[in-house]
């Protein structure tokens, strides 16, 4: 019971902290919007072309935006000593990590997933494809946060952590990108998106179980 209370308080605090500093949240979303808008300017605004690249562009941009906010996952708590207190709390560190990832997703991945269909309109995607896009992002962005947590924990307090984090995490993101963008692309070409979506779901199930364990182990190393 006590464990659940502490985890709820932690979630509440993490979200409260983000809302006290809304600019971080907003700039992540702006980055997403701007990055997506750059593509038509770069490749031309022909509707058929945009329809073809839309799913991939939206997914890549969402992935990069989610990655940008990763370094904040543990850095502030590390710098001000809160992380040490979290390690000494009665709750297992794996659950602490899980809750922090959940908080991170609620304020970064979830808004991205909800914003994406709006941007999908810029790429002339059909209503059904927009639905698949949202669903794939709802399944995929938690995975981005989970995998990213491992990278964020490994690079905590390291020189040049931001770039290093990208180098570590981006290759691991590839399956998520392939299945997510693949599902949307399948839908856009009239095929069944179920395969990609169910593979994403399977990966998410794996990620929820294993990523917090790995991230907690990494966090212990970084705290030593």
């Amino acid at each position, binding site marked *: 019971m006590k464990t659940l209370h502490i985890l709820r*308080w932690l979630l509440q605090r993490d979200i409260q*902290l983000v809302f006290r500093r809304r600019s971080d949240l907003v700039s992540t979303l702006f980055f997403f919007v701007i990055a997506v808008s750059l593509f038509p300017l770069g490749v031309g605004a022909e509707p058929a072309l945009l329809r073809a690249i839309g799913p991939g562009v939206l997914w890549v941009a969402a992935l990069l935006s989610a990655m940008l906010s990763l370094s904040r996952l543990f850095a502030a708590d590390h710098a001000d*000593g809160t992380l*040490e*207190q979290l390690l*000494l*709390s009665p709750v297992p560190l794996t659950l602490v990590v899980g809750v922090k990832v959940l908080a991170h997703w609620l304020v970064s991945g979830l808004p991205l997933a909800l914003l994406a269909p709006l941007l999908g309109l810029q790429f002339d995607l059909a209503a059904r494809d927009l639905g698949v896009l949202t669903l794939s992002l709802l399944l995929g962005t938690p995975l981005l946060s989970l995998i990213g947590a491992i990278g964020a924990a490994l690079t905590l307090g390291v020189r040049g952590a931001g770039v290093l984090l990208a180098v570590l995490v981006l290759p691991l993101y590839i399956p998520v990108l392939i299945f997510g963008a693949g599902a949307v692309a399948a839908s856009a070409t009239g095929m069944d998106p179920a395969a990609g979506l169910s593979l994403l779901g399977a990966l998410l199930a794996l990620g929820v179980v294993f990523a917090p364990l790995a991230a907690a182990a990494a966090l212990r190393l970084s705290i030593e």
Partner: protein
Amino acid sequence: MLQVEALACQRGGRWLFDHFTLTLIPGELIHLQGVNGSGKTSLLRILAGLSSPESGIVRWNGVDIQECRDEYVSHLLYLGHQPAVKDDLTVRENLQVSCRLAGLEPSAESLRSALEETGLLSRSNLPARVLSQGQRRRLALSRLWLENRRLWILDEPFTALDVHATQLLERRLEAHLAAGGMVILTTHQQPDIAEDYLRILGVGT
């Protein structure tokens, strides 16, 4: 009772200490002394179970702290170098959150009285970013008035405190020791604590 046996610690390829041994009994305060970089903070972190030593064992009531972690952390209050204060939360919220994360739900009244003790009551609704260094330290120390833990591990608790706050902390430490508590701390000052409680120990080679 806290027992440390043959602790050895290496950082950056250099031995900070080797065969370090101590025993801390109820009603005793150990003041760790040593020059900068002698490994005082590393030692405290090992004692708190935050990092593991190269070799040696830390025992709480005879049991290795790695094996009785849950029991051990429920008796432990560790205040590190960094005060664990969030700029964006108010003074009161900060204190409340740090108690909660330690598994304690303090009443509004107890929060109030703790802040009153440390002289922060008038600032309790201000964001912590407006506090001075000394006030931040006081805020972190406020937990000492709230949480009922037997073992206190304090890393430089006197840093940035003024004369009044220093005395306040000293009296709090004495009250804790008189009640059978245990303290292990580092400081470069000479805390004015009754001789009966105080033991001084050097760290480093």
